[in-house]
């Protein structure tokens, strides 16, 4: 963390949805920052608010039902509450997004060339021909063979991995400074996953963009992220560099994620340990630590404190947990690490 204003900064972001049952606090006080050329991995279960938070950056949340507060600044420009026109100029241009399912995320009615060229024409004022050439160039860059022929094909004529390459070409067509990838490899098979991640990293080296990689897969985090943010129930519970978070995790939830993940190097006899319970309702979150009902370490702190007081996430490296640093180090070394070996 630097003291000068970061490239993208999200401060105390809250996204609340008014539903018939009450207010759903999908994102509830989230802060993070990303620098150019760095990759921030955001990891968490389904419903932890990672997708909502990042879609809110580009203003893609539903304007009718969502209430947003806090600050999102990109290169010093405030984006929360910015008019739709401002956001339109930004989207696909300075900041672009890749979605999870490349089959449904591309329009079935237009050729991939047209879909890739569209933002280039709009943001760069390029002519039809220039945009088409650019689309072919981008298709080549993301590794689609015979791009000049495939540019006129429709999405359904591509395989899943190729479609995700098309998505990436579309997102990168205007050289965005920020790329948000929302589970870009979840819908793909494992060999293709690795290719797509490699491609993203290569393109990051070339364009120097900042990347936010949203995933529930710690394997993806390990292979691409520089920094990691662990989200739980609409908040960040742990933050650090990828070595810190994966090498010496501090939050019991992160421990749970690690021990529930299968590894190729582990003893096959050893059982995976799922995190007990399910994520809390975001409708009326309890006042204390949101992870308290599922946490195995509550008694080490004292239940009263965990139930009654919400732990804060410190600036920089740290975890939002009432355990002391010593306790965390001891518990990780004695109880968690042996299970990961």
């Amino acid at each position: 963390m630097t003291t000068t204003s970061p490239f993208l900064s999200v401060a105390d972001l809250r996204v609340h949805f008014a539903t018939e049952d009450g207010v759903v606090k999908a994102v509830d006080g989230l802060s993070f920052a990303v620098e150019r050329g760095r990759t921030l991995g955001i990891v968490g279960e389904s419903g932890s608010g990672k997708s909502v938070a990042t879609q809110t950056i580009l203003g893609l949340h539903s304007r009718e039902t969502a209430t947003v507060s806090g600050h999102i600044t990109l290169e010093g420009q405030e984006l929360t509450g910015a008019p739709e026109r401002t956001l339109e100029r930004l989207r696909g241009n300075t900041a672009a997004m890749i979605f999870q399912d490349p089959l449904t995320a591309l329009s079935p009615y237009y050729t991939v060339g047209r879909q890739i060229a569209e933002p280039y024409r709009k943001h760069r004022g390029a002519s039809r021909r220039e945009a088409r050439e650019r689309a072919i160039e981008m298709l080549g860059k993301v590794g689609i063979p015979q791009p000049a022929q495939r540019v006129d094909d429709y999405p359904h004529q591509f395989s899943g991995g190729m479609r995700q390459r098309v998505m990436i070409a579309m997102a990168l067509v205007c050289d965005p400074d920020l790329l948000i990838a929302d589970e870009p490899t979840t819908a793909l098979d494992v060999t293709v996953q690795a290719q797509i991640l490699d491609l993203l990293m290569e393109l990051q080296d070339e364009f120097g963009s900042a990347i936010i990689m949203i995933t529930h897969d710690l394997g993806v985090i390990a292979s691409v992220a520089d920094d990691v943010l662990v989200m739980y129930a609409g908040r960040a519970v742990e933050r650090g560099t990828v070595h810190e978070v994966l090498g010496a995790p501090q939050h019991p939830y992160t421990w749970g994620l690690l021990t529930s993940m299968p590894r190729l190097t582990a003893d096959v006899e050893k059982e995976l340990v799922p995190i007990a319970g399910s994520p809390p309702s975001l409708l009326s979150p309890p006042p204390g630590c949101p992870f308290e009902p599922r946490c195995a370490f509550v008694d080490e702190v004292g239940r009263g404190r965990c139930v009654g007081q919400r732990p804060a996430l410190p600036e920089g490296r740290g975890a939002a947990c009432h355990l002391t640093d010593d306790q965390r180090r001891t518990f990780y070394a004695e109880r968690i690490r042996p299970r990961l070996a």
Partner: protein
Amino acid sequence: MLRFLLRRSLGAIAILLIISAVTFFLFYAIPRNPALLACGKTCTPDQLAIVERNLGIDKPVPVQYWEYMVGIFAGRDYPVGHCPAPCLGYSFTDNRPVLETILDRVPTTFSLAVGGAVVFLVVGLSMGMLAAWRRGTLLDKSLSSASLVLGSMQIYFLGPLALALLVYNNQILSQPEYVPLTEDPLGWFNGLLLPWLVLSTIFTANYTRMARSTLIEQLREDHVRTARAKGMSRPTVFFRYAWRGSLIPIVTIFGIDLGSLFGGAMITEFTFNLPGLGRLAVDSVTKSNLPMLMGVMLFAALVIVLFNILVDACYALIDPRVRLA
């Protein structure tokens, strides 16, 4: 495309054969002798037998049906002369060739149905777009409520009401009548305006609601969100992406509605006393005029089947997944 047309044509022929057989045999299920009607009050059994032979109904029903079908495909000889294929026979009541009468009446029904469809597609779909564009607002809610009310306005209720209010009492619209388009385009338009509006009311209401809900559904689609994420403007997202995706369900419903549109046109003709196929069908039932009834039924079925094929072919235009599959 060629295989599609071939397959659908075979299906269409099968449907038409079934409809013709059902109509033919159903007609004879009604215990009434058309010859008795033609023969008049002072009819002796001998005279009746002659009339029956003249009408061709003295033979067993399956034989009659066979001769009728042969007539359609190969033409048929009558005492009055040869009737070339496709021969639909002669009317029992006025001895005119059935085909001639039907072709006389087609322009009325066709004008009514096509004009009505244009009205409800244009008005209904644009109202639906408006409601979806401004969803959640007072305008959206008013349009939705109005479409619920108008969606229950049956033609036989709305027709006389509109006639009384707009024509007889206030002279806002002219008296419904059929003037051939080729003779007097303005008169054609004026004469059919009220029937069009009445015929299209329920459809307009339904298409408003349908267009609204499909559009709102489409606006939640992933690929529409992608378009927004690319920085496309709201109109582009709405029309180029969401509207495009709505076309498939709308065309599907339109294909299904063709039958009710044709039926609605017939009821409208009856309501406004216009000389179309609807009146012809009703008259031929009440007068036991078998050849005319068969002719109208087959013609109506043929038109609906053909338009259905046309609508299905439209899928290929709209959706590249169909076109290239």
